[in-house]
């Protein structure tokens, strides 16, 4: 297995993990410190990097006075980060077991702990992104085991889930989030997520075109 393919896969895993984490719950001091210390991570938050408030406040104050307030506004109160809200004609959320995204998770025998996530339904943007993270992880494992058929099947699922679900609504939501963001951090996060999702779909589309021949692309 070529190193660059594995690197790419690890990158996908890590970015899905980071995005799902940040869209799921409020950033805490530990998380913020991690981002600030890691230049690679920080590079995805270019506006935040040079945000003057960052200089004026301690991390704790920054979180409490700005970031958490913005998180609450964007992801809990005013915007609705749930697929069904965007895709159903009646804009109703399906919080029960009949949520189609929930049904997909169940089909793959993934049980989502909504209470731990503190979200209302399985089609929350962070849950969908964490699902992608789980799939990418499984894909990586298959690659490492040399089981490319399994990897291919998982990549197909990733493609399908992105196309049929995440891309159906997340770009709209993220554009709204970007517009409504009151802090550089969440402005960047929305942009980062949007860019990455589109980019990853392009990557998977390319892979699909090659019939999931990972090596063909790297030649």
């Amino acid at each position, binding site marked *: 297995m070529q190193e660059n393919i594995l690197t790419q896969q690890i990158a996908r895993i890590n970015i899905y993990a980071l995005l799902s984490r940040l869209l799921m719950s409020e950033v805490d001091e530990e998380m913020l410190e991690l981002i600030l210390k890691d230049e690679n991570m920080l590079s995805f938050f270019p506006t935040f990097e040079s945000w003057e408030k960052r200089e004026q406040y301690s991390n704790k104050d920054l979180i409490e006075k700005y970031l958490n307030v913005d998180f609450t506004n964007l992801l809990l109160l005013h915007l609705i980060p749930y697929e069904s809200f965007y895709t159903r004609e009646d804009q109703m959320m399906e919080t029960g077991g009949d949520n189609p995204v929930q049904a997909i998770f169940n089909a793959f025998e993934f049980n*989502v702990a909504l209470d731990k996530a503190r979200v209302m339904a399985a089609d929350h943007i962070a849950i969908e992104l964490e699902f992608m993270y789980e799939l990418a992880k499984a894909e990586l494992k298959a690659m490492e085991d040399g089981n490319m058929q399994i990897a291919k099947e998982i990549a197909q699922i990733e493609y399908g889930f992105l196309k049929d679900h995440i891309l159906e609504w997340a770009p709209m939501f993220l554009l709204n989030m970007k517009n409504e963001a009151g802090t550089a951090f969440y402005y960047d996060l929305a942009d980062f997520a949007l860019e990455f999702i589109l980019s990853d779909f392009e990557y998977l589309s390319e892979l699909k075109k090659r019939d999931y021949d990972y090596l063909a692309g790297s030649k």
Partner: protein
Amino acid sequence: MYLQSRRTFLKGAAFSVAGVAIAKGVFATDAAAESVTNSKFTNTPDTLSFYPPQSEWDNFQELDGADWKRGGIERHGVRSEENPDGIQVNNYTIVPTVCSNCEAGCGLTAWVNKDTMTVRKYMGNPLHTGSRGRNCAKGYAVTSQMYDPDRIPFPLKRAPGSKRGEGKWVRTTWDDAMAEIGKKMHDTLKKGDEISKKQIIYHVGRPNENGFGHRVPHSMGVDGYNSHTNICSAGARQGTIQWANDDRNSPDWANARLIFLQSSHAADAGHYFQQSAGLIADARKRGAKMVVLDPRMSNSAGMADLWIPCWPGTETALYLYLANRVLHEKDINGTDLVNHEFFKEWVNWDRLMANREYIEKHMLGNGYISKMPKDDSYESFIEMMKELYSPYTKEFVIKECKLEGMDHKLDALWEMYIDAGDKIATYLWRAGPIAHRGGWMITRAGFLTLALRGALRGDIGGTSFHHWHEISVAGKGDKSTVAGERPAKVDVWNEIPWPPEYPLSSYEMSHIMPHLLMDDAWHEKWTKKGLKIPKSIAVYMPRMYNPVWINPDGFRWIEALKREDKIELSFNLSPTWSETNWYCDYVLPVGLAGERNDQQSTPSKPEQRIEFRQAVLRVAAEKAGWKAKDPSRATLEAHMKFGLGEIWEESEFWPNIMVHHVDPDGSLGIRKYWASKKDPSRAVTVPEYFDAAMSLLPRLKETATKMYKNEEFPVYAYMRDHGAWTEKTNVYKPQEEELKVDSEYVYAHGKKYPKNEVKKDKFGALWIEHDGREHSIGLVKDDKILAGFHTRSKKLEFFSEWFAEWKWPEYAIPVYPRNEGEYKKMEHLVTQVHHSFMKADNEFALNTVFRLPYNIHTRSVNSKHLMEISQNHNPVWIYTKDAEKLGIKRGDPIRVKVTDTVSGLDSGYFVAMAVPTEATRPGVLACSHHAGRWRLKESVDIPGFEHPLTIMGVGAPTYEMTNDGKVGTLKPTGGLHARHDVWQFKEYNKDLDNIWWDGLSGSWQNAVAPSHPDPIAGNHAWHLKVIIEKAQADDKIGDIVVNYANNFKVYQAWRDQLTRPLDHNDTERRPWFIKRPAVPLSKKAYEVHIKA
């Protein structure tokens, strides 16, 4: 910056911390997913009307409701040892039954948890073609009623040595109670004289069953049935009897073009609410219009296309105005608006025209018409009608109904009425017809407007009569008994329910029962005239009834019940505590909707259907293999075994008391009607009796016999498992059904008559002689013999010939006073709350009789849910400008003083809260008489029983009462409070610490109201003339002060000034051919000889 270079994201691989440490990690694979795959539960049904298929009812698993809201099994899986956080699954037996909270009898299913043998919920029954799986708030409240914390757990007996009303009770058993009561009944009947056959009275509230109760007095040979009809619907029934000799009409709501309602009945309360409301909604969805005549803007009026707030009791004028226009106007093609094809064929104009003596003496004589018709042709009849109704002009109606400024509404009404053609559905029932003197004429006039347009033909979308849409077999399980046949007709006439002043009443005069009992002068007068009237009732037996509270002049009821010389023994078969229970000797707790066995049938649409109410715990237990020790007491045993308490019900109680106590040796000839044919040593069982009764339906019998080949009682088994059966659909134009005729016989009403004995009169009616009486059996039309209506003429009777003969000739056709001069002359048709009686600004008509959709008279006080939503919902509605004029503001307590317009006597007052509103018309107050329950003690202690029995602890505040035989008062002393004393059904009553309401939902206005017996229909005319004033300093909302000595005089004034009693010229008590329900009487019983 779309799109960033993919390479940028490769930096993600170089994060200092791996994704696994960043991700929240909300996914896990576990046992839940597998359990979901293996399950078959429906997380969210596609429609609200989702029900499991009937084939799965015996064993149906459903997710627990409390868990379901966590997201269903798709989220949590099914609970098991491996998946303890999964969703709880309940194992149910679903047993069909029927709601008993109102007369509609909607289908219910009881979901009996097989593990606990408790009913977890009541849902609808989709197999019931009337209610179609739906219920109203009262239906879903049955669970709270079943597990009411204040449920009476065992039979109670008045403590020996205490007086009635003292509130001292001891615990007894059903067997001991039956022994004492049965002996008293036995000893009374043993005398065998005429008086003793009038001394047992079974007083049934809303029966919610079709004939079993009638069988009780009938089988004992006593004329002892008393209904609540006279405070409910007697006016409407009277008008319907005169038109069609039927009890009530029956509309085809769903296919109508005009829903024409007088009152909120059908669409938001009452007969047959929920079923009717759903059908009305269906019709409106398809474009039908809805008109509501009602002084009050009810929910129905609020959503109607047209609300016409006539002055209450004047609606007759409006109907006759419509008749006038129909007779005089033509449609745009120049065609008459009268549907001559129907009217000429099916209305008895011919008999009127042939009776020139009547026309001359009463129509010409009373100035209804100015000249005699030139001949007896139909055309001359129509000409006469035109003159007869010409005074009822728009101007007249506006003045009479006080619709000033509402001309446009009358125009709109006219358009809707005409546009609908013959597809007009109505249900004239309570409201106007019961509320007023002469209310019955509202029905007479209302049906005239329908008949003229052909809408009474009973065709699709029109209005028919209930007889054809109802099946009554509950009293006919005779084949299961030793006798094997119906009891013989009863030979006595009981003057207590059927007094001689009211020979035409519809029906029993129950609201004046205590007055008659205590009216010595009345007793003496009729005794002198040769009648044998009992001075006391030996055994008085209310059943699911609360006469003290619901009847007018409640203090008179209390007086009578307390008098042991007047009512020697009394017991109430009552599911709940009630004001009446307080004054009885026994309180015998009987079952609610899921705890009884009744056959019911409700005419809510043009079909013939029965439903079967069941004791669901018994049925579920029997399905699980449980067997009663005594099959004739299986319901009682099941209730005791499965924790409901010593709750029984009538279809087992009556057979048992009759067989073992009333007539144990059969010497009275009663036992054989209640002893089992299968095992004569015991009483008949529920399966035996109802299988025999319901087997009378041929299609049901055929279906059930095929389906339940191995069952001993296949018809019972079918109804046990399905709960409802529709014998016939699309019952339209039933009067036009051809009678079967062969070479020898004419077949009618299940009998056959030799052709040579059948005689045809000149109007085409066929007659036979039977039992010394002439019976009409059909009507010849062209070359066919048709069934016809139930009248003597077999036609609809515009002219009620018998009514004319029975002393009321001037009202034998639909009429109404045409001017002020006729108000006195025709006083029997003028409401006691007519606007001409209102002189001062603070004098009003009080509209009392409307129902509250979530309360049913006295049957909802045991439901915490219904009582919670009832709070403060019964103020006195007063028109905004009237309130302004009197300086009354929202929330002000006011004194509502009741005064009688016949005797001029005052009755006292009640104190209530005023709410100024545009939703009642000027001059008319509204305050429903369905609220204002009371209790004198919070609870009673039963010797030897550890828990105090709380009385109506979710629904009635505590009051202090005084009464001295002349004046009675009631004053609220304490409200409800949070409950921590619940000792039974705790699982169902975890929320009783959250009783926030005080229970004071109104005043007991019924007690202030004197009895106003209509001189003809006999109904208590409910509405009241009142004078209002602001409350005084010491007044509290809920206070009442009643001069019931005056009320006694009011009843006497109405009786003596307005009636036309039987006299020495009369030979019969009542026209034998009009309905006298319950106990069939012999010709001998009808005969009367009144001394001059």
